[in-house]
């Protein structure tokens, strides 16, 4: 098999394994990443809500916040995200690469 095809297979395996990134933190009762707390979590941490965070955190509503929250939605999000990433890179690559 050509190396690039093996690398794509590797990506496919990683997509299927992504729910590990959801299950492990839940199992160990870990919170959000440092500095990425939700509003309630932050209020609990410091006892008030910084005005700027309150104002700007609502600026953008992502269509699929946090990649969905179940294992299966996590896999679908990974696959969808990678499809968009690949499409974007091939478009960019059309402009940035040269024929030999």
């Amino acid at each position, binding site marked *: 098999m050509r190396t690039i095809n093996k690398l794509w297979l590797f990506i496919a395996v990683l997509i299927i394994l992504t729910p590990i990134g959801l299950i492990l933190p839940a199992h160990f009762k870990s*919170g*959000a990443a440092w*500095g990425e707390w939700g509003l309630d979590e932050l209020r609990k941490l410091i006892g008030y809500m*910084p005005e700027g965070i309150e104002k700007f955190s609502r600026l953008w509503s992502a269509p699929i916040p946090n990649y969905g929250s179940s294992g299966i939605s996590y896999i679908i999000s990974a696959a969808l995200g*990678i499809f968009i990433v*690949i499409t974007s890179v091939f478009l960019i690559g059309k402009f940035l690469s040269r024929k030999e």
Partner: protein
Amino acid sequence: MHIPDGYLSPQTGGFFYLVMAPLWIAASKIVKRNLKARQVPYLAFGASFVFVVMMFNIPIPGGSTGHAVGGTLVAILLGPWAAMIMITVALVVQALLFGDGGITAIGANCFNMAFILPFAGYYIYKFISMNSAKDSFRRALAAGIGAYFGLNTAALSTGIQFGIQPLLHHTSDGKALYCPYGLNIALPAMLLEHMLLFGWLEAIITFLVIRYLQKDDPGLIL
């Protein structure tokens, strides 16, 4: 390490967009000069790889979570300027579609993960590997060490961006407007977790993939 909207002031967010703009232009020019059409699939692979690696949240029991990026690895395959483009694409999709990282913080997040990380990682890799053979153990080890320090340099930069917020912006009664934690908390928090856990993960992933490519297709490694 994905700074959300609101944790950096609009001024800080805007500043890093301004810093990144010339870097993105330079990356496009440099990649355009060097990238061959047959390398585009590898560019797509690299962007996909960093996208999916960042979804593997690893817990610190009872504490926070974090993840590897894979940025040094993709820099070793196509160079740091191409890495900047690959990681930027992944970060923009993560921010717009999944709300992972704020849209006002795309400049800052790209500065940390798409600029600082691959450049630090790549040049440390180059410095340690010197002119060792493409398939040498030393080169794979250099990749792992570069990856470790690349991620930690990015964590340092992120910690500084968070930590200067209370210094720059607060209400008259001393309450924070944006990130409430100063450098004394943000720096050790970001650095310790990456030095103790996520940096090792980044190093091991990079080492193993490079070790595999050395056996399978050493021509891919810069």
